[in-house]
């Protein structure tokens, strides 16, 4: 079925099946065609719209200079006087030109429908033959068919150019290595409040509290001695190190045997980064100990090792083993024992 003749390409016909085509209806005259007054009126309407458009264009310039922005950005219904006036004047100026032109076309330009014949999309048989002959001549004269050695080595060399094209992009980023498996948390690092960076005393947390916390290394001071991170690295560690700390009745926590000493008096901490696609989790319901991700509604039970109770996530939130230091501040026992955040191919290998 690869070849079609010109006849098969002709469009379908419906002649007299079952009713014969009555042909194009007669042209009916518009009022503007036959009544000079109507015609003049339409002309005035069009010109008025164009004229009004020019007025709005001037008003746009006036509003540009008259209305302040900056401090007064939310005058006029919270939208800003400048924004509203610029938008309305520009909009009306454009609309009036558009409506004017269309009105002109509908009322005053000739409205005789014209008929144009269609032709099949394909070229004529002669053209096809000629083109094929030309292609053939080209192929013959180049000898691309007769000289497979030249042809194949060319194909090979061009294909090989794909390598440089790919390799040259290599420096887009470093290789992942095991970077995703580690965060900045380490043994003895204090938990600090995420905005102000003050360490958290275990005794300051009430039952039912949820605190958004961060590793102390993100708030370097002379006292704690952590190095100042460059911005890019800081953002990465911030994105991975975010945790939530909650306190509940110690007997409500269903801890597996190997995590029994990961909590401090009912204070328990998990990665804040959802194991689904990596949104920070934040909606906590203290009576059920459920925390919900606002992006795709994965819900985790913080009392039960943050197991998934609802939503698309597949894995519990990684838990951060907690302890207290001599001054009573919460510290991490170690880094997370598994990669935080979204799943990835080699996750279990790390």
């Amino acid at each position, binding site marked *: 079925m690869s070849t079609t003749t010109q006849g098969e390409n002709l469009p*379908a016909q419906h002649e007299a099946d079952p009713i014969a085509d009555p042909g194009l209806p007669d042209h009916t005259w518009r009022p503007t065609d036959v009544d000079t007054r109507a015609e003049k009126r339409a002309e005035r309407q069009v010109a008025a719209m164009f004229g009004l458009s020019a007025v709005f264009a001037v008003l746009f310039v006036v509003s540009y200079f008259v209305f302040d922005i900056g401090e007064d950005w939310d005058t006029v219904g919270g939208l800003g006087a400048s*924004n509203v006036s610029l938008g309305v004047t520009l*909009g009306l100026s454009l609309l009036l030109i558009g409506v004017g032109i269309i009105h002109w076309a509908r009322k005053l330009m000739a409205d005789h429908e014209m008929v*144009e014949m269609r032709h099949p999309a394909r070229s004529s048989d002669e053209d096809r033959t000629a083109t094929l002959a030309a292609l053939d001549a080209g192929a013959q004269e180049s000898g691309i068919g007769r000289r497979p050695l030249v042809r194949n080595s060319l194909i090979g060399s061009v294909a090989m150019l794909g390598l440089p094209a790919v390799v040259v*992009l290599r420096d887009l980023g470093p290789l992942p290595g095991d970077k995703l498996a580690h965060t900045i948390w380490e043994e003895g690092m204090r938990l600090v409040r995420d905005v102000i960076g003050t360490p958290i005393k275990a005794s300051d947390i009430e039952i039912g509290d949820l605190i958004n916390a961060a590793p102390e290394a993100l708030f370097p001071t002379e006292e704690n001695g952590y190095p100042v991170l460059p911005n890019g690295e800081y953002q990465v560690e911030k994105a991975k190190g975010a945790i939530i700390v909650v306190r509940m009745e110690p007997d409500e926590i269903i801890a597996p045997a190997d995590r029994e000493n990961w909590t401090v008096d009912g204070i328990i901490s998990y990665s804040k980064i959802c194991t689904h*696609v990596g949104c920070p989790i934040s909606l906590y319901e203290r009576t059920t100990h459920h925390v919900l991700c606002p992006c795709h509604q994965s819900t985790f039970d913080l009392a039960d090792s943050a197991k998934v109770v609802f939503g*698309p996530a597949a894995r519990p939130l990684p838990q951060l083993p907690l302890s207290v230091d001599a001054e009573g501040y919460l510290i991490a026992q170690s880094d997370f024992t598994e990669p935080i955040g979204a799943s990835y191919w080699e996750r279990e290998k790390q």
Partner: protein
Amino acid sequence: MSVDTSKVASSNGRNAATASKPGRASGLANWADDRLGLATAMKKNLRKVFPDHWSFMLGEIALWSFVVLLLTGVFLTLWFVPSMGHITYEGSYDQLRGVGMSEAMASTVHISFDVRGGLLMRQMHHWAASIFIAAMMVHLLRVAFTGAYRKPRELNWVIGCLLLLLGTLEGFTGYSLPDDLLSGTGVRAADGFMKATPVVGTYMSFFLFGGEFPGESIIPRLYIVHVLLIPGLLLGLIAAHMLLLVYHKHTQWPGPGRTEQNVVGFPMLPVYAAKAGGFFFVVFGVIALMGGLMSINPVWKFGPYDPTKVTAGSQPDWYMGWPDGALRIIPTGWESVIFGYTISWNVLLPILVLPPLMLTILALIPFIEAWITGDKREHHLLQRPRNAPTRTAVFVALMTFYGLLWAAGGNDIIAIRLDMSINAITYFMRVAVILGPILAFWITRRWCISLQRHDNEMLLHGYESGVILRSPEGSYTERHLPLSETRAYTLTARDRDRVFTVDGDRDAAGVEAPDSRSQRLRARLSRWMFAHNVQKPTAAELEEAHHHAAHEAELQSGLDHPVDGHQFDDHRLRDTEEVPLRD
């Protein structure tokens, strides 16, 4: 109807003006033609005929909003700083003054509050993007429901599908640029999607972000993709889309004098150029009004991106909503570890499989349909949706699937606004996305077939006039009147469906023809597509029905004068030839 044409306005002549002595304009045209030789191409195209119908305007909305996007986008680039360098905002907006943020976010706030007209351009740009994608989708549906994708326009349909994909990506890269809390959350989710790719996921993520998320490279990289790479591709594909449109000539609705062989409408110059050009200003103007009066993407309210924060009700822009819905309703725990490697079906299926699969199906539909029908002819007359019940039903099913997933993408908003359980909505959606399309398919197909029956009913027995007659015996009947010739012809100007059947799939020796298995599948699909359709009446059936109607009418008295109360409308009985029939 006769009109005294001597009164026709002089500026409105029937014939194109004939060239008199060469004026300044023709002098310029000659100068240009001496150098460019455009006259040969122009002589045919300047008066090229375009058919008229409101639905042909939908693609034009997409085209013109793209032009608005280019114009407003260029304005924004003059101030936007595509950098993730950390600075402290010190501009006019009180609530953010002194807050640390990326230069991208700070410059976006600067454009909004310290550049006059900047907020207008930002909002126009965002509104135009929404309109661009929405118009492409509605245009796609128009093309699908009328069968305009049939030969020779299949490739233009594929180009259109690519435009939709690129438009969506362009939208995503665009709204990610301000680096505000909402868009940053979207970028982080995109990072999660990439990491879910088997084998190369983490490499893709590290190469795109220049290391670990978020790094400092993603905004400049998205920026160049957004302002150069995708717009370039879009421009090229739009040009190809338009060139093919001109080459194929636009499809038209069937009607008296409108056949597969011709195109009837207004010439490009002046009418179509004026209408299309005027429409550009209308689209531009409406977008300007929206930019002035309707707030969109107020990034200063979301605040700068902070990887440890998120707001409730986080939503992507609407066109990204349907894969997000699929992502939300995937059942808990769909992840497997095979030979120590993690496969996240919960992300893979809704994001990396479903959208490309849907797009592929969409792009292939014209080819699948052509294979089933075996139709090698060109089609330039549009079909009414009812006259292709299976195709219409397939597209309504796809729309239902899309719509339900889209609603699922807003399950949190629905839960809050309607005070419903988000869990219940999610469970419902898991079932609805499967059953909904099936139900929609079935209802639509039956509906279309009923409408086909109704058309035949009108052709054979006339339309319901609303005139109730009481017979001398006291029984009531409604008077049916024949359709006008125009209407009747238009209703019948369609092909009869042919169900493809396999014959002789075994030769005399009982050997199966080489591809008879695929041909049998084709026959089954053809039967499924067409067997229930109602075909238009034949000439004999029409003749018979009209004869019958005339006989009926004779039996009813009072045919020689109009029924009381209907002397002056078109429901009166047709007593003379001059009375125009209702169209």
